[in-house]
């Protein structure tokens, strides 16, 4: 609770004082110390200032300043004393905790430190976060992996750390959404200590953000991450001198292995408790001209605007001179801003004439000047160029001629492995499922429960679970590509092509993430600045074939194209990409017209992914998949079985018609006319309908609907694999339901039509309106129908398959 929230007469015990250094120091010196009692003398709503009594004397604070002090309330304490109960015992002794308890609570609470991780993209913040807190957030060797704040708790040395992982930013100006996001977090959440994660192999650029944090007067500890690369390159870095120079502790860390993390957090405690010998607030010297301008603006702010003491005037002046849009909005909301803006404008023009560059550039240059000055004294690059291997690989991988074929080749290997290597473990699971089925078959009496178990649950869930190995292999490749740094190269290669087709370059990463799952991919599109590009990226993302569609493909290619599986899989994925590009062009043409924003993609050095990190990633995916089996797949399987089992047929009716006459049969036959031109019978139609919940459900529904056939006889019907059962199914006239052409048409339809419900919800949410979710649902279904129609009809005319 904030001190400002206490009402007149209430008391509280101070937990901690947040806010920036100078202000905080003064407040603490005034007696606002952890564990001390504070009483509100007068707090009139909407009126500043508020009067408090602390350590026996009266202090007045602004509401905005009081909001920076955290307290625990002692409400009811005084009233309790005034109203003793019938036994004469003080009311409060068992209704409210005693003063001593409260103080203990306050002190305990004060031992919770809010920490925010701030740093450049790809500097290893999430790796650090995962190692410190034991979380398993997504890590990848490219910029823009993390798009939202993630928090976790952990303990060390009696303190609890609430640590927040933030998206990476190059600076704290307010250009891109992630910059605004991080800035907002820092100014509104007031983390007690900021951990600035710095990539030691790229100090100059990474320290730029550090200078901005210094300007903001954030209490900070610098994590010198990737210290291993620094050592390997033979660089020497006297960080001990640098930390004294900039007034913030620097701790070498290797977050991949956890080296240095413990020490770093003990420094964090030191900074939090104001015990660290290094920490002090420094002013970066911007040179005479700029410093003069800063002091003019600062003086004018002090003179004309009545601002909270919690705000650094110097930082405000710098931001004003940089003509930072958000600061402009802020200052315009303050009375007396006219005079300040006038002084600002005068100084900005003066800087421009004196330095022959606009003031923002002047500040940027001055910051870089400060950094290179500091590094000149402390840093000596080593002789060994470790970038060599990266450059060598890139010579081929991003080559104009070779790059694209290599990319296709890697993709082909990925699908080949997914299919062929996955086939063996898949068979083991298949056998296990079949064995379970036959066990139930043997030992259970006939009845509806037995049918539910065998046909519904084992047929449905068992039909999907067998694809676990394939999905894990796919993720193995994806996570290897992400962690090694190849993904950024793929984006680079594709960027040229995508640009020519009118798509924003930054869209590539969310699109690639869509191969895993569309939902996080849609969230990842947050990094795209322009709203239109972002919307287009979200709208076409469902065309990226997510891993939930893989079971359908593996089932059908295994049954109908066993020899050409990898090519067919690759073809499907590529069709998805091509369609996405086509749709993007259409949308751009007819829905959103807009200029391209230039896009710079950083190409990080290649890194060998650790075995452990890949294993963890796959384990997470396996858990996710199994959870899905126990959740949505199980539920839909049971419901579909019910709909296929009831109503119970009248005695003596033909058992082979049973399924056809069931609820689901009737439903399927109602929608089948729409899908018949694509070559689908009613069972396929039903599967597609239920597959809207999640695409694996297409397979589980097929599994359920294809167990009920009576002709195979009671024993041994489970022993048959689903793909065999599909191949055997025939229309009454004897012609097979499934031909390779139907399978192809079906796979294309599954690729394109209605993304799962979760994706539609994600799009609606991120786009801010239900209309977009609905739009995606409608356009994908129409597109799917058209494509499958063309393929099926053309294929029937020209019998190639």
């Amino acid at each position, binding site marked *: 609770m904030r001190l400002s929230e206490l009402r007149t007469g209430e008391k509280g015990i101070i937990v901690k004082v947040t806010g920036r250094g100078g202000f905080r120091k003064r407040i603490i010196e005034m007696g606002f110390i952890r564990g001390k009692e504070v009483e509100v003398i007068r707090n009139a709503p909407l009126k500043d200032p508020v009067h408090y009594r602390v350590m026996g004397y009266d202090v007045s604070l602004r509401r905005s300043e009081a909001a920076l002090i955290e307290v625990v309330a002692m409400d009811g304490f005084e009233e309790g004393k005034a109203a003793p109960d019938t036994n004469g015992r003080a009311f409060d002794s068992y209704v409210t905790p005693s003063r001593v308890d409260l103080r203990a609570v306050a002190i305990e609470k004060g031992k919770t430190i809010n920490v925010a991780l701030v740093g450049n993209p790809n500097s290893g913040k999430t790796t650090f976060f995962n190692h410190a807190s034991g979380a398993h957030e997504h890590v990848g060797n490219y910029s823009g992996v993390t798009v939202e704040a993630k*928090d976790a708790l952990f303990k060390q040395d009696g303190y609890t750390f609430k640590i927040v992982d933030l998206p990476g930013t190059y600076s704290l100006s307010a250009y891109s959404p992630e910059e605004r996001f991080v800035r907002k977090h820092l100014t509104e959440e007031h983390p007690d200590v900021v951990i600035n994660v710095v990539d030691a192999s790229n100090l100059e650029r990474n320290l730029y953000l550090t200078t901005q944090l210094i300007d903001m007067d954030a209490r900070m500890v610098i994590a010198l991450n990737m210290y291993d690369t620094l050592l390997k390159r033979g660089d020497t870095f006297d960080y001990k001198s640098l930390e004294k120079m900039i007034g913030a502790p620097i701790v070498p860390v290797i977050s991949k292995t956890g080296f240095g993390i413990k020490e770093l957090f003990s420094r964090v405690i030191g900074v939090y408790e104001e015990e660290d010998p290094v920490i002090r607030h420094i002013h970066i010297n911007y040179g005479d001209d700029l410093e003069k301008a800063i002091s003019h603006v600062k003086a004018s702010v002090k003179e004309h605007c009545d601002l909270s003491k919690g705000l650094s005037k110097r930082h405000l002046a710098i931001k004003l001179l940089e003509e930072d849009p958000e600061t402009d909005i802020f200052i315009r909301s303050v009375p007396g801003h006219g005079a300040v803006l006038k002084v600002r404008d005068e100084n900005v023009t003066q800087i421009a004439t004196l330095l022959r560059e606009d003031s923002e550039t002047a500040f940027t240059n001055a910051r870089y000047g400060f950094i290179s000055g500091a590094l000149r004294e402390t840093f000596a690059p080593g002789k060994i160029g470790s970038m060599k291997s990266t450059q060598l690989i890139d010579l081929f991988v991003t080559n104009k001629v070779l790059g694209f074929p290599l990319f296709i080749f890697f993709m082909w290997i990925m699908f080949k492995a997914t299919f062929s290597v996955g086939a063996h473990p898949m068979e083991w699971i298949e056998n296990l499922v079949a064995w379970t089925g036959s066990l139930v078959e043997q030992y259970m*009496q006939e*009845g*509806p*429960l037995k049918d539910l178990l065998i046909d519904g649950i084992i047929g449905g869930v068992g039909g999907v679970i067998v694809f676990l190995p394939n999905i894990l292999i796919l993720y193995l490749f994806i996570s290897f590509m992400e962690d090694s740094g190849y993904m950024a190269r793929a984006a680079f290669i594709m960027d040229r092509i995508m640009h020519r087709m009118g798509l924003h370059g930054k869209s590539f990463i969310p699109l690639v993430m869509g191969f895993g799952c569309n939902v996080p991919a849609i969230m990842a599109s947050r990094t795209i600045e322009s709203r239109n590009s972002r919307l287009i990226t979200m709208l076409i993302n469902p065309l990226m074939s997510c891993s939930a569609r893989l079971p359908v493909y593996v089932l059908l290619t295994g049954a109908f194209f066993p020899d050409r599986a990898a090519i067919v899989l690759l073809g499907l994925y590529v069709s998805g990409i091509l369609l996405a590009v086509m749709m993007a062009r259409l949308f751009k043409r007819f829905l959103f017209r807009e200029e391209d924003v230039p896009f710079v993609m950083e190409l990080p050095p290649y890194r060998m992914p650790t075995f452990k990190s890949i294993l963890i990633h796959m384990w997470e995916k396996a858990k996710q998949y199994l959870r899905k089996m126990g959740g*949505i797949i199980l539920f839909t399987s*049971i*419901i579909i079985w019910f709909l296929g089992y009831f109503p119970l047929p009248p005695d003596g009716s033909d058992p082979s018609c049973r399924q056809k006459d069931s609820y689901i049969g009737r439903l399927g036959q109602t929608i089948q006319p729409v899908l018949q031109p694509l070559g689908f019978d009613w069972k396929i139609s039903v599967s597609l309908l239920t597959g809207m919940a999640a695409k694996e459900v297409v397979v589980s529904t097929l599994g359920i609907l294809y167990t009920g056939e009576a002709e195979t006889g009671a024993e041994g019907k489970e022993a048959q694999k689903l793909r065999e059962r599909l191949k055997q199914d025939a229309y009454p006239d004897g012609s097979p339901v499934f031909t390779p052409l139907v399978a192809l048409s079906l796979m294309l339809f599954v690729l394109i039509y209605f993304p799962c419900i979760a994706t539609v919800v*994600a799009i609606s*949410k991120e786009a801010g309106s239900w209309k977009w979710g609905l739009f995606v649902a409608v356009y994908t279904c129409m597109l799917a129908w058209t494509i499958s129609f063309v393929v099926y009809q053309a294929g029937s005319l020209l019998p190639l398959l």
Partner: protein
Amino acid sequence: MTYNVQLILVAVIGILTVACTGYRVYRLILNIRRGGDSCAGCRNCALKKRKNKRKDCPKVK
């Protein structure tokens, strides 16, 4: 197990499934209603059964 016992068990499973699915859909709707720009969409609210107390969510700013 006799036919009737099985029938009863199947009915129970059916009701449970429908109830669970219904609850999930309800949670989904709650989560969507809670959505908007300030919601991180972390499903925390739904998982922790916070009902409509959106302001309790640490991620809603």
